[in-house]
């Protein structure tokens, strides 16, 4: 069953509430509930873990396919371009050269092997 326009807006408003509450829950929680020391320091790695979880499944999708081969992974372009972006950004110690290099690899593969 398709949602009506009004239901879609109600869904959007509910999403706003969900996102606002999850992002702010410790702003209103008592200070004593907030983690300290080692745990707080470990939590500082959570954005890195989240970014890795955002990029790895998409980048490795062709590799994880049942019929994966070197050719299919190269043709897909996502894993080679991600590896180039990561290495260039790591060596340059700056994200921008990595983004440019990775995008160039992705586009060149798409152009020569559409």
């Amino acid at each position, binding site marked *: 069953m398709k949602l009506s326009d009004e239901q879609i807006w109600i869904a*959007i408003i509910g*999403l706003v509430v969900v996102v606002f509450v*999850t*992002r702010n829950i410790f702003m209103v929680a008592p200070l004593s509930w*907030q983690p300290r020391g080692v745990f*707080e320091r470990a939590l500082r790695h959570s954005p890195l873990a989240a970014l890795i*979880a955002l990029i790895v499944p998409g980048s490795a999708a062709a590799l994880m396919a049942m019929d994966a081969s070197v050719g299919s992974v190269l043709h897909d372009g996502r894993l080679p371009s991600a590896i180039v*972006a990561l290495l260039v*950004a790591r060596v340059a110690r700056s994200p921008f050269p990595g983004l440019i290099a990775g995008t160039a690899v992705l586009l060149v593969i*798409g152009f020569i092997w559409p």
Partner: protein
Amino acid sequence: MVGSTVLGTFFWGLAMGLALVKGGLSAMQALGMVMLVFSGTAQLAALPLIVQGAALPAIWFTALLANLRFVIYSVLVATEFRGRSMSYKLLLGWLTTDTGLTTYLAAQKGAAATEPEARRAARYLGANGLIYLGWTGGTAAGVLLAGLIPDSPRIGFIGVLAVVALVGPMLATRVSLWVALAAGAVSLIGVDWPARMGMFCAIVAGVLVALVLTRKQKPSEAVS
């Protein structure tokens, strides 16, 4: 550092705008969702359910699970800016993004320990504010150009490459490498788990690894 993140966010927004309109939302609904919800993962998780006409509580609960990592982030933001007013903290919390928080934490490494909280908060607001503009601008472009641009996965992947490039310089310590390996492995294992639970479990795995490895470190060595 923020520049490439904003550029990548623009392309990610472009892909999101295309996906929302091609998924059946009107231009106003797509723009309203992006400007107000401002969460790519919550929107990506909710969109198929909205298109299928799922029950509203199911849509909201799925988005809640997809966004559980922001509960962890809110601990960091609340601790970092505890001296700010409640309304300012709520604004900073609502604007929090994965990439904005990462950019801020990296910049903090080079900042003086005595830097006033007000200036740190302004930097955090600036980083996430620019990402908000990149995200909404990209989505608006995607909504407007939905009839002209073919639905190419390559366009969306440029946004992913921006995040890959952001991660590159962060992999400079032993702890961050192990965190990345643990989170990456769990994200692959849980790639098909419902409601993006694989992503949440990957974060938990990364934090657990960091917890074990940082137990005996000094605080200054612990931040990636």
